């Protein structure tokens, strides 16, 4: 029998499970066996597909046929008619014209994409980002047309407010409320700003989003501007992102040429345009007031709030600042509706979140999952687990402002409140998986080194305090830690967290405080036993030559300081006083005769 190698996707979201999706899987397998199709047809599970009201959902690819309200009784028919005969069943097929989740239409890669749900990244990796036709053909700018043509600004604000969308930059302020506050301000002109000053080490969500689908951001901003009464927008993007800059610039030019930016957009009374501002890469410029200063041409330093930018932002005027991911959600909310958007996610956190998954995980990458997905699902299902058979140790979310969570928090669902409760933050989307080979004190030191270096220098706690914390951490990892150092870190960290001027300082101690909370024994070992269990801290480890040594002399020849001695064909020894712990001998030895201790 010549059967198309179909791939079937079963929605494994909560709603579909409740309406019997898992029983479908069993029935499906039985039927495939009966028809001898187990080789040709594969079954994949997906996270919530966002069609909960029509579940359980079963998708047949190629062809992207979506079957809704499928029961066990329907399975034999689907297999017989569709899979065997190639005749899709019209009775069961549903037409869903959502903007999201185009991935199943074009991708096979269901293991990786299975638990994902793509709302903001819906076009990334699908369309040619430099061709506005690609975007237009996928209902691009239709949300803008709907907003300016069929909705009042108040209705747009209300829709966004109803959607439950919260700022994706990290703090999670309700976007609709921010817009409402700004819309209520009398002063004109008003501004909208897109914060594309992505600065977390290892994070690339914004860059990828803009590079993959720049028009979504443009469209989102135009809708926001219409909603609050702005006619000028700015995209603040770091100069280190030349390709993203080129593509967003091209997108703005193309949109302008199509009458989607500029005067009287789509024949309406609404006029709006966007300018690009390049940031020089200071981390603090991601903080909204610092970003505003930078756009104004001043030194990028935060200022105290209130007044908030909604009241007095760019040039002292009412301003809405949202980050790339937040803006990218807007067209979907307008077109698919707040009611649909609210079905995705958890009670307090609606929609999806993009993460840059990195570190000791098999599938590093850019992912987007519904809120409420657990850390375990992200790391093991999407990420494919820890490579090389190593043990999971910790996951770091929120970048340098976040915290390190140990294994007992793996079932924490991704939402703003749960992550804070667990001792970390959502942040803008950095997620770094750490395995047993990492030293948590060293990890904390790494992040603090970053924030210490990126502190703008304005407020005392952040400028001076992070420096002192870093000095203490450095001496701990250097094996010079003193009793009381942990308490000093906690005292300084607590003060900095509560006293700093802006979010950078307030969150700078988080990596340290969370590792002390969750991995205190590691700190204590460093200080009291001068021991680094992960064997990362150079000063705390030494190399020894064990009995496996055959006396080949390779280590002796490679040692830069002449610390290794020994006669040919007899076991060598390392002079610990001379050894500088460079690790060259360890890497050179072919007989695993050199051990870290």
């Amino acid at each position, binding site marked *: 029998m010549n059967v198309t190698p179909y791939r079937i996707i079963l929605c494994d979201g909560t709603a579909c499970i409740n309406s019997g999706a898992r029983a479908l899987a069993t029935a499906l397998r039985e039927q495939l066996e009966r028809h001898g199709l187990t080789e040709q047809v594969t079954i994949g599970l997906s996270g919530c597909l966002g069609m909960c009201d029509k579940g359980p959902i079963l998708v047949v690819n190629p062809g992207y046929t979506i079957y809704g309200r499928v029961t066990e009784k329907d399975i034999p028919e689907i297999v017989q008619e569709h899979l065997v005969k190639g005749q899709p069943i019209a009775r069961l097929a549903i037409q869903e014209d959502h903007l999201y989740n185009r991935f199943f239409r074009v991708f096979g890669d269901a293991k990786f994409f299975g638990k994902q749900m793509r709302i903001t990244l819906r076009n990334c990796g699908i369309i040619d980002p430099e061709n506005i036709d690609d975007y237009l053909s996928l209902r691009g700018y239709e949300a803008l047309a709907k907003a300016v043509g069929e909705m009042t600004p108040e209705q747009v604000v209300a829709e966004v407010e109803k959607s439950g969308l919260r700022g994706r930059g990290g703090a999670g302020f309700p976007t609709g409320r921010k817009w409402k506050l700004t819309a209520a301000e009398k002063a004109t002109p008003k501004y909208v700003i897109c914060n594309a000053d992505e600065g977390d080490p290892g994070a690339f969500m914004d860059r990828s989003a803009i590079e993959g689908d720049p028009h979504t951001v443009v469209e989102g901003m135009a809708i926001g501007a219409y909603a609050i009464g702005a006619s000028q927008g700015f995209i603040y993007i770091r100069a280190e992102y030349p390709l993203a800059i080129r593509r967003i610039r091209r997108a703005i030019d193309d949109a302008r040429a199509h009458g989607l930016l500029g005067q009287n957009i789509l024949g309406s009374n609404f006029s709006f345009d966007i300018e690009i501002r390049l940031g020089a890469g*200071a981390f*603090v410029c991601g903080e909204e007031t610092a970003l505003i200063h930078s756009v104004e041409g001043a*030194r990028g*330093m935060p*200022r*105290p709030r*209130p007044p908030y930018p909604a009241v007095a932002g760019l040039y002292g005027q009412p301003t809405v600042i949202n980050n790339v991911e937040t803006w990218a959600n807007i067209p979907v909310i307008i077109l698919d509706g707040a009611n649909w958007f609210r079905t995705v996610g958890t009670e307090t956190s609606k929609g999806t979140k993009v993460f840059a998954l990195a570190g000791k995980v098999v599938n590093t990458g850019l992912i987007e999952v519904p809120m409420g997905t657990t850390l375990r699902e992200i790391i093991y299902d999407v990420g494919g687990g820890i490579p090389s058979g190593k043990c999971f140790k910790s996951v770091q979310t929120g970048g340098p402002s976040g915290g390190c969570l140990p294994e007992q928090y793996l079932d924490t669902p991704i939402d703003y409140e749960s992550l804070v409760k667990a001792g970390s933050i959502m942040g803008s989307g950095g997620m770094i998986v750490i395995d047993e080979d990492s030293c948590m004190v060293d990890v904390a030191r790494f992040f603090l080194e970053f924030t*210490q*270096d*990126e*502190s*703008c*220098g*304005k*407020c*005392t*706690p*952040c*400028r*001076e*305090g*992070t*420096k*002192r914390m870093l*000095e203490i951490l450095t001496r701990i990892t250097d094996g010079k830690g003193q009793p009381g150092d942990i308490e*000093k870190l906690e*005292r*300084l960290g607590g*003060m900095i*967290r*509560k*006293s*700093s*001027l802006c979010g950078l300082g*307030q969150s700078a101690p988080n990596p340290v405080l969370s590792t002390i909370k969750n991995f205190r024994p590691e700190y204590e070992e460093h200080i009291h036993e001068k021991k680094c269990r992960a064997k990362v801290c150079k000063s705390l480890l030494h190399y020894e030559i064990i009995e496996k040594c055959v006396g080949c002399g390779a280590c002796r020849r490679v040692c830069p300081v002449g610390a290794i001695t020994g006669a040919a064909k007899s076991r060598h020894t390392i002079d610990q006083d001379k050894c500088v712990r460079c690790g060259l001998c360890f890497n050179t030895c072919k007989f695993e005769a050199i051990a870290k201790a």
Partner: protein
Amino acid sequence: MDTKKITITINDKQYKVDAGQTIMQAADTCGYRIPRLCYHPKLSVEGACRVCIVQVEGMKSFVASCCYPVADGMKIYTNTKEIRQARRDIVELLVDNHPEDCHTCERDGNCELQRLVYSMGIRHRHFTGARKHYEKDLSGASVIRDPDKCILCGRCVRMCSEIQGVHCLGQAYRGFNTVVMPAYNMPFAESVCSCCGQCINVCPTAAFVEKNHTQELFEKLNDRSVVKVAQFAPSVRAAIGEAFGLPVGRNMEGQLVAALRRLGFDYVFDTQFSADLTIMEEGSELLERLQSGGPLPLITSCSSAWMKYMEQFYPEFIENISTCKSPMSMASALFKTYWAEKMKLDPKKLLSVAVMCCTAKKYEAARPELEVQGLRATDIVVTTREAAWMIKSAGIDFVNIRPEKFDTPLGLSSGAGTIFGVTGGVMEAAIRTAYELYTGETLIDIEVNDIRGLKGVKEGRVVMDGQELRVAVAHGLGNAHQLMEMVRADRNRFQFIEIMGCPGGCIGGGGQPYATANSIPLDEECLKCRAQALYDLDRSKTIRRSHDNPDVQRLYREFLGRPLSEKSHELLHTHYHAKTPRGIVSPNLKVV
């Protein structure tokens, strides 16, 4: 301002306060003085030092009281164990990155950081570590910058840009390495710094100090082979008492004359005499320009900081600037000519020293165009602060000393010369004389209230013989900038303009005594008291118009001839030149 009353609770006690204020302002009215550092009422709120943090019930972070507004029912705690420790630690962090050289520091005993450390009760240091280090900038003629002592409160930066409009200072680099410096890390000498010294006034530590000339002066005072002549500016007498713990606004003229003699000066003259002389010259210049049609407006040139600022930012108005030298430079020119001749002294063997409320006068004194017969006219300028220190250092009992009189003939002055030290004073003095020169009649109501007071830009009108003279006054370079923009927009709006570089005029000069423990730098009440001391002195005099000063009249008779004579021009007038330090776009630059 919203004057609705609301109820707040501070440390469990209820208070009714005005709505619309910050927590700090409200607490100030309730008898709390929350510790503070970067806050200054005249400057924008920085919220940087975090010393003024308080706890507000329901908020998870501490709140900087300088910038957070009060709300009805707000519960505020200023002294809990937690907040006291956090505040203490913040101040310790400042000290940990500050040199430990209090004993040898110029601000020892008058340092806000020192006072804070004391009141926080920091008896041990927990967090000592590395300290930042940058070289001192010794290049400036007036102001020395020592970044090691800077605690980055940012008051100087805000003063320099917001009040003075110079924008010379800014923060550079990041984090722990942050440092306040002129653009491109230029030395002061090559920067747009106007030398006004207001950064010194607002600096809590010794990160900014004046270029110190006290050692050099002590040395010269011991040189028996020269004749030592001193002059001091009007505002010095109104403020120097503060440096000795006396109440603000006490006139110490006689005591200062006596003290300077005890320091070793042979003659002590009054800059107010040459202020009168300035009025004669400048008043005549005004009349001449009014009659010949320009160039108008005529703009005063007494303030050295304003002159440098003008040369840099408003060179197109150089023709409008009065050619008169400042009173200090006029006096010094006369010391080395008229008076030296009279006393049969070799001007090369004459040391001319000026005690000034001003740091920019150090810069002015070094201007080559002010040389007289190849000699520097003013050899040394010391500020009020430096003079006070010298008097203390020399063991002179300034507070109890018996007042003495100035030497003659360059020591007698009218009340008009006295009020030079206050914003509007030069204008008022000029009107007193110009009116009479123009109309031939004596002005009866000589106190011109329109142009008194601390409003930034003041406008006034004087009717002389049916002719209206439109005048304007600005003090502080930021206000000067505003006024000059008005002039740029309408050149005919004013005919005569007085500009003083410092807030309040010379009484708020960059060389005046530091604020004491319980006051703030450039406190408005303090400025008003100093001004009042000068106005009182004016009223106490029988001669209140410059042209009535008999010694000025004699000077013209014996030496100068008449105002604007050739001799006057040679000795009392000068010219200014456009300056374009780096960072200033030359007006000739074409933007492509």
